[in-house]
């Protein structure tokens, strides 16, 4: 029917425009320069949090039903404009198949369900705050979710000795921007709850800079030749938690998932 076709074209057009607009959303307040940290570097210290639905799905997506019936609307998926520049992730054909299998089985396979560490850059946009603790030799990222920690080595830099969930990060300043180069990932984390994934060849370069007194610009360039046909980029603002006495609290979720993981191995009462 003609109307349905027009609607589809219109929706596609709007989504494309909005996806392109993602790159403009993070424009800096002209001329904003962060206060200096005591060592003279831009001061990125603080408690920060993303406000978007990237953790549900980093690509543009509509609202959807909860995968868990009993949760009703509390488990439903909110819509998102997407944080991936260009809109669609450039998977190889085999990787796209795997992504779709992941998505179809996400309750079983999503590492977040099991309280596993979030990986990078997912940790940045989990719906939990994280704190940047900036010193000269090390910049620490401490996440409320699962107490995940990232050490960014600003000095004494080496290669990753072994694979890890949060990778091995070497950082440097480029003017006002903190550039974080991370490798040494295992292949176990996902980018979101929708099955978007990577291999152990993952290489992420993040660029973080002050956008205003209480916001940061955050960009991550993702490269993984085993999964994607080319590098791709995501970007989003990060918001300072400005309430007085804001602090990272405990989300020690292992306890919350033990019955899920090990309940089937519990001793059953004897017949």
């Amino acid at each position, binding site marked *: 029917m003609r109307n349905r076709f027009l609607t589809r074209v219109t929706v596609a057009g709007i989504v494309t425009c909005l996806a392109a607009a993602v790159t403009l959303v993070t424009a800096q307040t002209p001329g904003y320069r962060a206060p200096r940290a005591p060592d003279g570097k831009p001061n990125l210290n603080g408690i920060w949090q993303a406000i978007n639905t990237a953790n549900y799905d980093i690509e543009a997506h509509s609202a959807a039903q909860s995968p868990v019936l009993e949760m009703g609307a509390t488990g439903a998926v909110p819509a998102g404009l997407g944080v991936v520049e260009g809109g669609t992730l450039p998977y190889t054909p085999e990787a796209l198949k795997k992504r779709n299998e992941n998505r179809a089985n996400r309750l079983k396979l999503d590492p977040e369900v099991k309280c596993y560490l979030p990986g990078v850059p997912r940790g940045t946009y989990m719906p939990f705050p994280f704190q940047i603790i900036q010193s000269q030799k090390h910049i620490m990222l401490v996440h409320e979710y699962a107490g995940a920690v990232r050490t960014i080595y600003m000095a004494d830099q080496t*290669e990753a*000795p*072994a*694979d890890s969930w949060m990778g091995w990060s070497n950082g440097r300043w480029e003017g006002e921007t903190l550039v974080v180069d991370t490798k040494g990932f295992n292949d176990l984390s996902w980018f979101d709850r929708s099955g978007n994934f990577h291999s152990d060849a993952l290489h992420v370069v993040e660029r973080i800079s002050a956008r205003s007194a209480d916001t940061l610009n955050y960009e991550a360039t993702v490269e993984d030749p085993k999964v994607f046909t080319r590098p791709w980029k995501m970007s989003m603002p990060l918001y300072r938690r400005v309430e007085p006495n804001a602090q990272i609290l405990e989300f020690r979720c292992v306890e919350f998932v033990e019955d899920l993981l090990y309940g089937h191995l519990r001793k059953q009462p004897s017949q």
Partner: protein
Amino acid sequence: MRAKLVVVIACAAMLLAVGQARAHHAFAAEFDVNKPLTLKGSLIKWEMVNPHSWFHVAVKEPDGKVTEWLIEGGSPNQLIRMGVTKNTVPIGTELTIEGYRAKDGGLKAVGRNFVLPDGSRLFLGGSAPGGTPAEKK
């Protein structure tokens, strides 16, 4: 409805005091003291993970079939501080593993000794014990 019990194991607190590492009884629950074994195989992969690392070893059975065994080893973190990386033990390294088999019947064991072809033990193990009686302390 299963009541959730908060069970505090005091012995864990005591073990933590003297060294959480010495939780032998938990290992004796995972692996069978009555099932000692010696495996000879080649390294497929050393999973440098915590709380215990795992060596994936290709073992040739007497009938010629090759099976993959998972052998439990220690945390890699101190070794990493001493310069060990994921490239230190090459894939294909021949290993003799003396240990105990898993209680759940799987192709799993704990590696009491990881012995290289020259008789030395992996990493900081020095010579394999149980050679001459004089070596036993």
